[in-house]
């Protein structure tokens, strides 16, 4: 428990705005912490503590909400998993990559998948998405072919199978 305390204490001390911190565990008793920030400006404060404790960024998850986007940074400090949740309504968040270089790809990825700008990120290049695909593809939920043609590739292929069956 001391190990968790050594983590949560400086973390809580660093935060300037409201937050909730919950202690959970996986199905095998390994601790998993969830820190939900009321204000995204606290993200850098928390990231700085993680960097000081020798932690690393495992990855980050983004998803769309009605008002904007939720972002969850998944961080590791010597085997303890810390999830930091923040939300943004203006498509920006302060990049933590300058503090935790392990966040490099994670932040670039939500930039291209959701169009959320990690402000202050050192690398502007695209990661996976081909230029022919629009940024923010994951903000939509339907396949591109269905949107553009009104039919999906599955519809087209199965129609052909049905035709051959009747032939």
């Amino acid at each position: 428990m001391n190990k968790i305390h050594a983590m949560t204490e400086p973390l809580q001390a660093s935060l300037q705005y409201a937050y909730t911190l919950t202690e959970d565990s996986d199905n095998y008793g390994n601790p998993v912490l969830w820190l939900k920030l009321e204000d995204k400006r606290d993200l850098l404060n928390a990231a700085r503590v993680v960097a000081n404790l020798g932690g690393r960024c495992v990855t980050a998850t983004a998803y769309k909400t009605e008002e904007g986007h939720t972002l969850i940074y998944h961080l590791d400090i010597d085997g303890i998993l810390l999830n930091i949740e923040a939300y943004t309504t203006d498509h920006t968040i302060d990049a933590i990559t300058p503090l935790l270089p392990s966040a490099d790809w994670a932040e670039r990825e939500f930039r291209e998948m959701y169009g959320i700008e990690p402000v202050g990120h050192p690398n502007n290049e695209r990661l996976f998405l081909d230029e022919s695909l629009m940024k923010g593809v994951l903000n939509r939920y339907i396949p591109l072919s269905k949107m553009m043609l009104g039919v999906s590739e599955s519809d087209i292929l199965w129609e052909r199978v049905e035709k051959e069956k009747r032939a």
Partner: protein
Amino acid sequence: MSERVTIGPFHPELEESVYFKLSANDDKVVTHVDLINGFIHRGMESLVTQKNFMQNLILTERVCSLCSNNHPFAYALAVEKIAGVKVPRRAEALRVVADEVKRAASNLFNLAMLAHLIHHHDLMKETMETRELMQDLKEIIWGNRMDMSANTLTGVKYDLDDEKIDLILKTLETFTPKLASLTEQYEHDEKVVARTVGIGVLPKADALRLGVTGPVARGSGINNDVRVKAPYALYDELKPKVTLRDAGDVHARAMCRLGDITEAVRMIKEVVKNLPEGEIALAKRPHIPAGEATVRVEAPRGELIYYLKTDGTQKPVRMRWKVPTYTNWEALKVMILGSKVSDVTLILNSIDPCISCTER
């Protein structure tokens, strides 16, 4: 004078498509590295939200064929956490067996590619043929050489009877001396040593900064193996002894992988000899309420994390995963800078890159 060299995206020495743009000086030493990704990006995080929880057992398996067991394994752990169910102990044991067989086969494939890239054909053939023992085992017990379809929600789809346990033990008996011989060769063989020692070095400080995991971390002296740091299934009892090296070179990473195989053999034997009695999965299909979970497992290449968010329907609202290569990839730049152009694909292979995993 500087020369520009491109490798890829389609190249016989690249298992998966990736595009390198390098600058090299007159001595053929790399002075600048540019890596272009995205050839294997299939939009899978969008696809998983279009499919139901049963379909996703298989879709996650198709993220990558080399760590194909880890994905549905981690995915199932996330669902089980949200559903609040405990998996039967026999199922936990069977999950370990499937995973370690996969780990052994995956690592051997990477080692075979190493031998291939240094043109050591006898060693490559020997490694591939040793791997075939695992491939045959997978085909007989699980029905496919790459995609085992071992996991289901709340347990596993397969069981082991005495006959199958016997087959596993006999296979391991044949396998063990071959593995010992391979370990000896990768450690000391002149050709291997000449091409891999001191090549593609990742210093410990860089490894820490970049957050690398798996054999890439362990080759640089860092142990962040999930099976040790946050044990799941039966790993808390099995206590895997991971191999650590400090050289941080191609050779060190290869030796960590061989160490993992030796441990895999030990753990498989231990588990199948003491297989707990009981069910292989819960009889009732789990109710998956609204919730979220983050879980981790150790894939052959390192840490794999799954985040799952559900809303009580039959499909995930959001699912994201991060594979070891995702963070190990940036380390390539450190390893390649200052290396010979002729070593680039060898160095790439030394992180055991799983591009399909990384780009999803």
